[in-house]
């Protein structure tokens, strides 16, 4: 296999909460890799630490209250991002690694034209002149499929629709042709048709520019359609990771199983689902007090004594190469419990 573009090892990002109610361990020992040119899906419910993971990669965690624990390791193109000086880090942000934010409505600065904002990264990193910056902005608008780019370049964000603003965000992120694009729920704020267009656009641009995409989402449908590999996060940990086809065919962690069962399917009869869509009971616990043992055990239908006492390490599910499919679940050691339950 090729060298990974981004290697995250044992990332721990904690937040010290006010009024002394303890430390929120939002990301607690996360490890994964992103390979050049691939799409990695990062999924999980709200509050699992997906966004904090992505912000940690660019070191955009507000400090205080947050901090990345010593011992964490984020390597990008052979350099540890966590030990870089602010100058070197800024040379990577927006240039080698770019990010698209969740909310196209609030991620654009209301007082500047979209052209100014798209060209900004190029101005910062490549010292473009005013005229060259404008030309680049128009070119990017064309690339992301906005009609009348010569006209639109002078518009303000409030003059555009949500879908167009998300395209502008993408244009902003891609202006320096980054090697890695972190897309934090890029389509959650959009309606389904626009969502499909944006995903298609991302897919096309990824192929054209040869960049890797880290797609953060809670929508498994989006993951199934676009990602090559999937990392499932729960309670600040990676609970399962595998190639997309493998994960959908053989989900091994009860949490992944639950997530997949909660997706409404067009090929199931209403009578078969017995009128209700499956949901995982309970909710993600507070990050200040993760449960002891396996963090999923209070919501797990299979949990037994061992799950309550001992936290499972990532176990190899033995599909293909070692490490291709890992699961943090004791069921792997006692598979008969799953069938007993079912």
């Amino acid at each position, binding site marked *: 296999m090729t060298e990974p573009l981004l290697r995250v090892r044992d990332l721990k990002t904690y937040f010290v909460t006010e009024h002394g109610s303890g430390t929120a361990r939002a990301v607690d020992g996360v490890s994964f890799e992103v390979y050049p040119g691939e799409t990695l899906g990062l999924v999980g419910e709200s509050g699992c630490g997906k966004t904090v993971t992505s912000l940690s990669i660019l070191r955009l965690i507000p400090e205080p209250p947050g901090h990345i624990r010593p011992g964490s390791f984020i390597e990008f193109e052979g350099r540890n991002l966590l030990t870089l000086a602010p100058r070197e880090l800024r040379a990577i942000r927006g240039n080698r690694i770019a990010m698209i*934010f969740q909310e196209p409505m609030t991620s654009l600065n209301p007082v*500047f034209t979209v052209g100014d904002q798209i060209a900004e990264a190029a101005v*910062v990193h490549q010292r473009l002149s005013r005229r060259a910056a404008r030309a680049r902005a128009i070119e990017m608008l064309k690339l992301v499929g906005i009609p009348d780019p010569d006209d639109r370049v002078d518009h303000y964000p409030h003059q555009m629709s949500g879908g167009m603003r998300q395209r502008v965000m993408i244009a902003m992120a891609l202006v320096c042709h980054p090697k890695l694009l972190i897309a934090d729920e890029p389509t959650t704020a959009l309606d389904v048709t626009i969502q499909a267009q944006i995903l298609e656009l991302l897919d096309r641009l990824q192929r054209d520019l040869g960049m890797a995409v880290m797609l953060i989402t809670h929508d498994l449908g989006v993951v199934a359609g676009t990602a090559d590999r999937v990392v499932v996060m729960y309670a600040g940990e990676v609970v399962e990771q595998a190639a997309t086809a493998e994960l959908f065919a053989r989900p091994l962690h009860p949490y992944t199983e639950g997530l997949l069962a909660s997706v409404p399917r067009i090929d199931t009869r209403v009578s078969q689902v017995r009128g209700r869509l499956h949901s995982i009971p309970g909710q993600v616990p507070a990050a200040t007090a993760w449960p002891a043992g396996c963090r999923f055990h209070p919501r797990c239908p299979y949990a037994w004594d061992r799950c309550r006492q001992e936290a499972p390490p990532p176990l190899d599910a033995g599909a293909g190469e070692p490490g291709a499919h890992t699961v943090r679940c004791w069921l792997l050691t006692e598979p008969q419990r799953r069938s007993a339950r079912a």
Partner: protein
Amino acid sequence: MTVGTWLALAGALVLALVVGAEARRAAGPVGRRFFRHPTAAPGLVVLAFFVTLALAAPVIAPYPWYLQLDPVHLANQPPSWRFPLGTDPLSRDVWSRLVFGARFSLGIGSLAMLVAVSVGAAVGAVAGYFRRWPDAVLMRLVDVGLAIPRIFVLLVIVALWDRVSLPVLVLLIGLTGWFGTSRLVRAEVLSLREREFVAAARALGARPGRVIFRHVLPNTTAPIIVSAALGIGSVMLLEAGLSYLGIGVPSPKPSWGNMIAEGQDRLASAPWTSLFPGLAISLVVMALNAVGDALRDALDPHKEVA
């Protein structure tokens, strides 16, 4: 007063009215909210009138501000056709001095406010954006600045310094007047820094200076403009007070404050020397407050366009 100067005065009045009417006609949604305020239009007209006076002073004033016409026969003349606002104890035309005084009073007011707003915005933005120790240090400094009476500080400085030139006076007034603005801007920045576009700017690799001055500060222009409009009035009052005490604009240069001081000895027999500059100050400060209030209502982001 010649026909030419009367015409110039009439021209200034007409120009002020036209500015008011034109601004109202061309108003966008924010402008419409501005003019909905009942005192906004009259305030704007008064300001436009005095600004025109200041800019066109040599054309409008019948005499130079320093000219003593005839100290024996023409001192303390009451208002007449020749001297519309009378003459002062040194036989200078009060109207001419009032017109030139507009230059000093309005000029010092706006320049000092510009200094104050620039410093206040920069300090507030740095404190609000970086938080932690810069915030703590700067805001304690502001607390100290707000706790010491301003006029007292200025008196001490002027007493230590023999002669204060006009640029220094402007700087002194500006540098003692930014505390309120900095608090205002800091509060704005505290909420702006959590917005996603700030994180987006940082994710682009922008330096903190670029993030603050290009992305955050332009979003605080509305409160800054309002505080500046309201602040100019108080700076003008301060300048008038200092000049009245003889430590502001040095005589014989006319400022509305030292004109009041010059007429106070004969307040009973020749009140016009003090009365008219006093009226001018009141009018302009009232106009500034009216316009500032209307601006605050018009620029309030929580009010949507009706």
